[in-house]
C-alpha cells in the first residue's frame, strides 16, 4: 500500500507539500486516505473541470465507493441522502432549479443594502468595545449568520445554537457520537421551524419553497444545507481575508484607495486559501479516462483543490498573493452542476465586510503574531478559531 496522503496543512499559506508534489509528478494519483480507503487524487485544474462536469462521476455520499475523509463520516452519510450536495441528475437539477432563483446575481445585489446595514451594526459594536478584540465572534461569525438566517427566515435568537452545532459538525476531531448529536439537534430544530413556516408563512426562502409546493422534508434538508454551507464558510473567509490583508499593507492600501478593486481581491482570497479544500469528492459510476489514467466504476476521487488553485497551468506564480490578478477561474466554489449555490451571496458579504472594515477602522492591526494564531488545522473547512485585532482610534 502507498503512503497515507496527508490532509492537514503545515503552513496556513500553502497547500500540503505532498499535494504539490503529486501535481508536479502524478496529477492523477492512486492514494491512501487516513481512513485506509484508496482513492484517486486530482490536482490539476483541467482534469478537475473535466471530472466535475462528467455525468459518470456521482456525488452520492451513500455510494460504497464515495470517499469519506474521517471515520464516522460514512455512517452519517445516510442523513445527507436528501441533500442537494449528495444528489445526481436528474434529481439534482430539479432540486437546484427550485431554489437557484433565490441566489441570482440580481437577487443577491438586492440584498446588498441589508448586508451593509448588518456589517455597519457589527462594526459599530466592535468600535465601541474594548481593545484588543477577537474579530471572529465580533464580525466573522455574526455577519454571514445574520445574512443567511435573514434569507431563510430563522430567528436571530436561535443563532448561538446554530454556531455551536455547525462548528461541531465541521471539526474533523469531533467524535462520531457527538457529530450525530449535533446533526440530530439541528435537524429537529429545522423540522420545527419549517412546520411553523407552513402554518404562518413569512417573506423568506423557506416559506416560498413551501408555497411552491415543495415537500416539507425536502425543505428541511435544503434549510440544513444552506445554514451549514452559508455560515461557517463565509465566516472563515472573513477572518482569513482580514488577516491576510493586514499582513500585506500595500495590497490593503490598493483596495482601500479604490473599492473597485475589491471584487478581484475577494476572488484572490478565495483562491489563495481554498477553505473547502476536500469538498469536491466523487465516485465513478462508469469507467472514465482522466489525465491518461483509467478510473473504474466504483472507485472514489478526491480533489486536492488547494493545490489545484495554484496549478501553474492556470495561475502564474500561484504561491504569490496578488489582489490585482484575475483569479476568477479558481475552483474554490467547485465546478460543475454542484458549484456553490450561495457564491454570489458570499462574494457580496466579503466585499462589503472588507471595504467597510478597513474604511471604518483604518488603524486596524493584528494583536498577535501570525504564527501564534489558532488556525483550523483540524476542521474540514479551513479558517481561524480566533483573530485578535486592535486599532488606533481615529
Amino acid at each position, binding site marked *: 500500500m502507498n503512503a497515507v496522503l496527508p490532509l492537514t496543512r503545515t503552513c496556513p499559506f500553502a497547500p500540503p507539500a505532498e499535494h504539490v508534489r503529486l501535481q508536479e509528478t502524478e496529477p492523477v494519483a492512486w492514494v491512501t486516505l487516513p481512513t485506509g480507503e484508496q482513492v484517486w487524487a486530482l490536482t490539476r485544474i483541467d482534469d478537475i473541470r473535466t471530472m466535475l*462536469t462528467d455525468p459518470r462521476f456521482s456525488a452520492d455520499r451513500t455510494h460504497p465507493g464515495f470517499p469519506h475523509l474521517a471515520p464516522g463520516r460514512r455512517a452519517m452519510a445516510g442523513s445527507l441522502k436528501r441533500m442537494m450536495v449528495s444528489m445526481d441528475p436528474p434529481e439534482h437539477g430539479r432540486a437546484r432549479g427550485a431554489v*437557484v*432563483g433565490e441566489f*441570482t446575481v440580481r437577487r443577491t445585489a438586492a440584498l446588498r443594502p441589508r448586508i451593509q446595514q448588518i456589517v455597519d451594526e457589527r462594526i459599530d459594536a466592535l468600535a465601541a468595545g474594548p481593545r484588543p478584540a477577537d474579530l471572529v465572534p465580533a464580525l466573522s461569525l455574526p455577519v454571514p449568520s445574520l445574512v443567511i438566517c435573514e434569507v431563510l427566515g430563522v430567528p436571530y435568537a436561535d443563532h448561538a445554537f446554530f454556531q455551536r452545532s455547525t462548528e461541531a459538525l465541521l471539526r474533523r476531531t469531533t467524535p462520531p457520537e457527538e457529530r450525530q448529536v449535533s446533526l440530530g439537534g439541528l435537524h429537529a430544530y429545522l423540522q420545527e421551524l419549517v412546520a411553523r413556516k407552513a402554518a404562518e408563512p413569512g417573506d423568506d426562502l423557506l416559506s416560498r419553497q413551501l408555497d411552491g409546493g415543495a415537500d416539507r422534508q425536502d425543505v428541511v434538508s435544503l434549510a440544513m444545507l444552506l445554514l451549514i454551507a452559508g455560515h461557517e464558510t463565509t465566516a472563515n473567509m472573513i477572518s482569513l481575508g482580514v488577516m491576510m490583508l493586514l499582513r500585506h499593507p500595500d495590497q490593503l492600501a490598493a483596495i482601500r484607495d479604490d473599492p473597485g478593486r475589491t471584487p478581484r481581491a475577494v476572488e484572490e482570497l478565495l483562491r489563495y486559501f481554498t477553505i473547502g479544500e476536500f469538498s469536491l469528492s466523487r465516485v465513478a459510476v462508469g469507467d472514465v479516462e482522466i489525465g491518461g489514467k483509467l478510473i473504474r466504476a466504483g472507485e472514489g476521487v478526491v480533489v486536492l483543490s488547494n493545490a489545484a488553485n495554484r496549478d501553474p497551468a492556470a495561475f502564474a506564480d500561484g504561491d504569490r498573493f496578488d489582489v490585482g490578478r484575475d483569479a476568477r477561474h479558481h475552483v474554490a*466554489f*467547485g465546478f*460543475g*452542476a454542484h*458549484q456553490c449555490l450561495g*457564491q454570489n451571496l458570499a462574494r457580496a458579504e466579503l466585499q462589503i465586510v472588507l471595504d467597510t472594515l478597513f474604511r471604518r477602522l483604518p488603524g486596524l492591526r493584528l494583536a498577535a503574531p501570525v504564527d501564534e494564531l489558532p488556525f483550523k488545522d483540524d476542521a474540514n473547512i479551513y479558517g481561524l478559531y480566533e483573530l485578535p485585532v486592535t486599532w488606533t482610534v481615529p
Partner: protein
Amino acid sequence: MTRIVADATRCVGAGQCVLTDPATFDQDGASGVVVLLRAAVSDEGLALARAAEYLCPGRALSLVE
C-alpha cells in the same frame, strides 16, 4: 460577429456569465437560467464572452464562429 449558444438544460444558475459579461448575459428571475441579451458578439466583445464560456460551471455556453 460570433454567435453565442446557451444550452438551458445544462445551465446551473451560478450567474458566472452575468458577473463576467452583463451586456450579453442575464438570468431568468424565477429559475436563474441564463438569458441571452444578444445572439452574437462583435470582435470587441469576444474576450468577455469567451471568459464567460470558460467560467460557466455547467458548460452551457458555446461560441460559434
